[in-house]
């Protein structure tokens, strides 16, 4: 605790060492980051790989949410309930460079996590809607059938005008949610940099490699 500023932990006396982060948090964090980056930049929207990656992202998101219920103490939702007021207070402290140590997520980081999870849920839900609720395996089978000259599978896909309008709206939601996630990611990166500077320790390393030996 060679920090030049006083923290809550200092005043309370000995601080319990929290060993961040556990392997599930790290794997889901970087896995989802990879999927978001890939589907935003590399893959073509609606392409086979885009859909597969989206489903993989959904799996990682669901695992993280399960881990939020049964996981380690600092990974559980109860450890960082959403609290916008506390998040704002934390950001104000951060702006003045006087941040408090938090054992796990700080209030602003927690708000970011919930915002990202909500957007990821919207993104995957709209994406699944756009592919007609079919799993990647079923889409592959359908593609194979069409390629073999069997167009009958496409018949069911015909929709009337109302459905088309709804489909366009969902597509719009998918696009907006995707862009919003990229914006949140940029904010997240900025927050990590600012927080690392204020706390004078690298916050990225524990997320990459876990607790120091």
């Amino acid at each position: 605790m060679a920090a030049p500023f006083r923290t809550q932990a200092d005043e309370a006396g000995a601080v319990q060492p929290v060993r961040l982060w556990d392997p599930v948090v790290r794997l889901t964090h970087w896995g989802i980051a990879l999927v978001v980056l890939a589907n935003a930049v590399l893959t073509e929207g609606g392409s086979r790989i885009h859909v597969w990656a989206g489903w993989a992202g959904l799996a990682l998101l669901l695992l993280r949410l399960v881990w939020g219920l049964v996981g380690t103490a600092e990974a559980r939702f109860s450890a960082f309930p959403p609290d916008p007021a506390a998040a704002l207070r934390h950001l104000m402290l951060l702006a003045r460079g006087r941040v408090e140590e938090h054992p796990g997520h700080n209030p602003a980081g927690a708000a970011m996590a919930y915002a990202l999870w909500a957007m990821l849920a919207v993104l995957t839900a709209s994406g699944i809607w756009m592919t007609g609720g079919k799993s990647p395996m079923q889409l592959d089978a359908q593609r194979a059938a069409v390629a073999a000259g069997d167009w009958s599978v496409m018949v069911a896909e015909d929709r009337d005008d109302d459905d088309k309008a709804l489909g366009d709206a969902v597509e719009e939601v998918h696009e907006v949610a995707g862009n919003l996630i990229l914006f949140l990611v940029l904010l997240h990166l900025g927050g990590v940099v600012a927080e690392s500077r204020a706390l004078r320790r690298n916050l990225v390393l524990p997320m990459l490699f876990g607790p120091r030996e």
Partner: protein
Amino acid sequence: MTEPVPKAKTGVTRRLSNALAAFLVVQSLAAVFFVGDVIGDLMADPGSIHFITEALVTLVLVMGVVFGAVALRRTVEQMRAQQTALAAASGALAQVIDRQFAAWGLTPAERDVGFLALKGLDVAEIAALREAAQGTVRAQLTRIYAKAGVSGRAQFAAFFVEDLLGQGLPVDPA
């Protein structure tokens, strides 16, 4: 100050929890793709043997993910408890040794040499570490043994090991 044996042990637990987490991720990927397929089949033909079998398999898979997550949480917690206990124990032992050294009236230099001797370093190594002549170290060790009232290095080390075994000499410096 980290002892080699426990460190290796926590390293194993750490690798185990990392492997379990990776396995959990693969399992969740499989589960989600399966669930997607099952929902598709449900819309196509509910009640078919194919659907029922697939639904059962998926249910088991999802349960496996949840149970796996709980087991992993236990492993991570166990690893942390081990590390905490280890830190507490090694801190407590260091304190016991420190108090005993004080009770014997060792000088600061003798305490250093005594600690290094307890850690298993031989005369040459202690001399090199302290940038002192081997003769000096040997003389210091002799004085330490005399003050402690032990016959030599083996008894000196045994003094503290005996404490750990639960029937130790009274540590209280009176």
